[in-house]
């Protein structure tokens, strides 16, 4: 060693070169050895591949053709939907379905034909099968017929040995125990479509057969769905399961608890009777919706099974439009229910509302001929704002509207949420319309006319609102300006934000008028104030659907007008007046008058609430 080192350090050129050559020779030998080794090892690998791909090819080819280990999807259990007390509104029930694994079937058409000889398989089933097949992974089981009856199941089970590649699976199917009662609210699921699949992560939805199509089922789809998992099974050549080798655990979907009280919801539907309309009952302090009714409705269970075309067309063309969610989508003229809010705007703008105005039964703009009629033909005599709310005097509000002007009215009504979506989780909510001169110019390209201001003062004309908006505005009023966000998902926080800020006296005036609507001797809804041990503040509304002529020579009596042209009946209310616990907004389509039709329904709801909740 010492010698070597000396050789390098005390080098002469020749020696270094010699040394280098020696080094190189030694290295070349090693490189040669390495080359041989590399070749040898690669040849060994090639030999191994030859063995696998040529010698044992048949064996592996067979194994590949009928690969017996199958990765199969375990779909998650969809989360339940319950009401505020945990009552089940949407549940899963087991149902048997017949599916095929196309890869295991020799002649698909023939198989479907012979299965059709045993049980009923419709063209729609076959079409759906082809669609589902298009989006499934190889060796996934594709449903051919769901909801097998016990008889069908038995027939198939007995004959199953004759067929290759069929599966009889218990799948979990959605069921809505309350049927039409919550159809618009809870919504429904249906067989997953191509379009649905584009909305989601395909891996997470592999094996999922149902997808939320409307309502809470649609809006909370991703929470309700859960996470799928897989199992590995060994199947024999005929596709029969030999043993399960590994099983993952799917993550169940979340439970969705709603603010709804299903008993209350039922009471609301019963109170509405067989009339078409919508009801919103909400807690004003936090916006929790206790009942949300749109009637008539439909049975959501029909959609789960796949509603037939005839039945669907029937629903679609029903003149009462059962598929339409009136509570969130229906836009109605708010009519006189808008008056408390217009009154509020008047006070806020320092217009003198305490002086009495004389109502002769009509109103005329200065220097114009046209008479705007009060609903009371012979007039109310003289009254102030409180009296005008109590008796719903149109003339008072015609005057007030003209004093305010459309844009100031717009400003104040917007603070109560008119003309804006409430943001309820159900989505697809209508926005209503709160007109302004700016809006009219933009939308219609026309200037605003004073006559339009007049009728806006009583919630007619361009004005429209949803029942949900009315409920929210009423709740803001009941809370003396505190903002209220209607919601359906049970939570407890209260809003501390104010939508409207005004002196107490302002609120007192409006609420005084609304209380007299029910409890005053001249109140339009005084009938529902009888035999009551709590105080309701409310406002009736009768919204014109058909513009009955205001002219003198109007001969038609309202009773003669066809039902579908009759006025909508509205009522908004909260109670108790001192400490509001419940807000109710009711619309009965073509119900006639707010006082006669809508107010009694609200009374029933308040009674139910204070007796049971």
């Amino acid at each position, binding site marked *: 060693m010492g010698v070597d080192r000396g050789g390098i350090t005390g080098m002469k050129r020749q020696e270094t070169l010699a040394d280098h050559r020696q080094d190189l020779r030694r290295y070349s030998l090693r490189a040669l050895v*390495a080359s041989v080794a590399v070749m040898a090892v690669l040849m060994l690998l090639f030999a191994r591949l030859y063995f*696998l791909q040529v010698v044992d090819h048949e064996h592996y080819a067979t194994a*590949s053709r009928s690969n017996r280990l199958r990765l199969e999807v375990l779909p998650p259990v969809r989360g339940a939907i319950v009401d505020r007390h945990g009552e089940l509104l949407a549940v899963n029930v087991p149902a048997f379905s017949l599916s095929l694994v196309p890869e295991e079937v020799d002649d698909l058409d023939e198989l479907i034909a012979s299965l059709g000889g045993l049980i009923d398989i419709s063209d729609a089933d076959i079409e759906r099968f082809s669609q589902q097949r298009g989006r499934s992974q190889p060796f996934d089981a594709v449903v051919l017929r769901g909801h097998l009856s016990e008889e069908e199941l038995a027939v198939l089970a007995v004959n199953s040995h004759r067929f290759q590649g069929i599966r009889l699976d218990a799948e979990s199917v959605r069921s809505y125990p309350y049927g039409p009662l919550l159809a618009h609210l809870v919504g429904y699921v249906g067989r997953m479509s191509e379009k649905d699949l584009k909305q989601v992560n395909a891996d997470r939805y592999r094996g999922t057969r149902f997808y939320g199509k409307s309502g809470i089922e649609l809006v909370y789809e991703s929470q309700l769905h859960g996470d799928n998992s897989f199992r590995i099974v060994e199947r024999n050549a005929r596709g029969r399961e030999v043993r399960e080798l590994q099983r993952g655990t799917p993550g169940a979907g979340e439970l969705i608890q709603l603010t709804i009280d299903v008993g209350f919801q039922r009471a609301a539907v019963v109170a509405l009777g067989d009339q078409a309309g919508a009801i919103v009952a909400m807690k004003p302090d936090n916006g929790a919706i206790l009942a949300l009714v749109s009637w008539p409705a439909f049975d959501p269970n029909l959609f789960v099974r796949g509603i037939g075309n005839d039945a669907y067309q029937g629903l679609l063309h029903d003149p009462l439009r059962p598929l339409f969610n009136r509570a969130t989508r229906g836009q109605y003229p708010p009519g006189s229910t808008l008056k408390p809010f217009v009154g509020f705007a008047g006070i806020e703008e320092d217009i003198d509302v305490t002086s009495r105005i004389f109502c002769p039964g009509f109103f005329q703009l200065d220097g114009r001929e046209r008479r705007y009629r009060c609903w009371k033909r012979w007039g109310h005599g003289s009254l102030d704002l409180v009296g005008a709310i109590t008796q719903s005097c149109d003339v008072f509000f015609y005057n007030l509207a003209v004093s305010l002007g459309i844009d100031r009215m717009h400003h104040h009504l917007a603070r109560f949420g008119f003309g804006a979506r409430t943001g309820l989780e159900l989505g697809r909510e209508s926005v209503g319309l709160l007109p302004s001169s700016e809006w009219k110019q933009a939308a219609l390209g026309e200037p605003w006319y004073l006559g339009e201001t007049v009728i806006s003062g009583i919630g007619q004309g361009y004005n429209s609102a949803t029942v949900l908006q009315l409920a929210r505005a009423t709740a803001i009023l009941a809370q003396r300006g505190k903002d209220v966000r209607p919601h359906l998902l049970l939570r407890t926080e209260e809003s501390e934000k104010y939508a409207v800020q005004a002196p107490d006296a302002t609120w007192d005036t409006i609420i005084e008028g609304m209380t007299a609507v029910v409890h005053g001797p001249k109140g339009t809804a005084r009938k529902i104030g009888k035999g009551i041990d709590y105080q309701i503040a409310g406002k009736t509304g009768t919204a014109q659907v058909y513009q009955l002529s205001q002219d003198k020579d109007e001969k038609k009596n309202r009773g003669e007008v066809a039902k579908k042209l009759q006025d909508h009946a509205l009522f908004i209310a909260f109670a108790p007046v001192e400490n509001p616990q419940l807000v109710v907004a009711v619309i009965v389509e073509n119900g006639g008058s707010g006082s006669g039709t809508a107010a009694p329904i609200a009374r029933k709801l308040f009674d139910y609430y204070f007796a049971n909740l």
Partner: protein
Amino acid sequence: MKYFRFDSLLLAILLMLITIGLIVSYSASGGDMAVVKGQLIRVGIGLFIMLAIAQVPSYFFYRLAPALFLFGLALLLAVELAGDVGKGAQRWLDLGVMRFQPSELSKLIVPLMVARYLSERAHPLPWRYIAGALLLIVLPVALILGQPDLGTALMVTASGLAVIFFAGISWRLMVGGAALGLALVPVAWHFMHDYQRRRVLTLLDPSSDPLGAGYHIIQSMIAIGSGGVWGKGWMNGTQAHLKFLPESSTDFIFAVFAEEFGLVGCGVLLTLYLALLLRGLQISATAGDSFGRLMAGAIVAIFFFYVVVNIGMVAGVLPVVGVPLPLISYGGSSLVTLLLGFGVLMAVRNDRKMWTK
């Protein structure tokens, strides 16, 4: 001398292999062009680095070796302290822009350091230099084992040992060392993680555990075997596409290749690998100095181990360890490291003329 220098033969073979890799990646990903594009970007980065490194004089690496070695150790320590846990093993270091596996770099840095350490030592290698070299190997390997990453640890060890072999360890010592290594197998067994032991056991009898570790091997053997002589054709490999084959774009991509291109394709691929290896050895044998020789030899050795360990694993003759198929598997770290290595190889080749003149 001053113009842009690279080894065109090496580059040609590399490009062929990378192209095969892209074609197979496309198929293994089920026809996902985004996968191919992502890989193309990595290829671009890797080739750029390679050609840049090729311009650097090789003595530069000689000077840099100790600093790089310390830097590598520091990175490994950083992973130990602050690394991300991916798939249950702590290997990744998050650099903000990209995640990076420092153990991957060790495959180059360790042989570099050993090559420098041994390049001045004359033949035959004195035992205490061998001991010193072993220490240089053991330090990083111990850290990598702690991650735990058995595959990389074995690769780093093997590449270090390859340098010792090329540096001229006496045949007698080599045989003795091999014997000692065999004797240490039971000790290693004792320190292995459960899943690592299972993989070794499964190798001996895959069917004993058709679901756990054996599942991979069985499925990949079915994929290869069913490919036959001519293969099932590009994009037609049922095993991979039916998702029987796990990790089909990464560690098990060879199975996809073998299924779709058959024994003929495998022959072509192995021939390309062989050509690359032989060219590498030729470059090493004609290198200008002892450091260059050792360095080049080590790079060839690493590449060789990659090929053998991966194909051996997929073909069911070696245990399942996480080693990608070089230049073919989807993924960035190993591709960039390998191309970096080939850059060094080209740099070594470029400096050959300094001696021959």
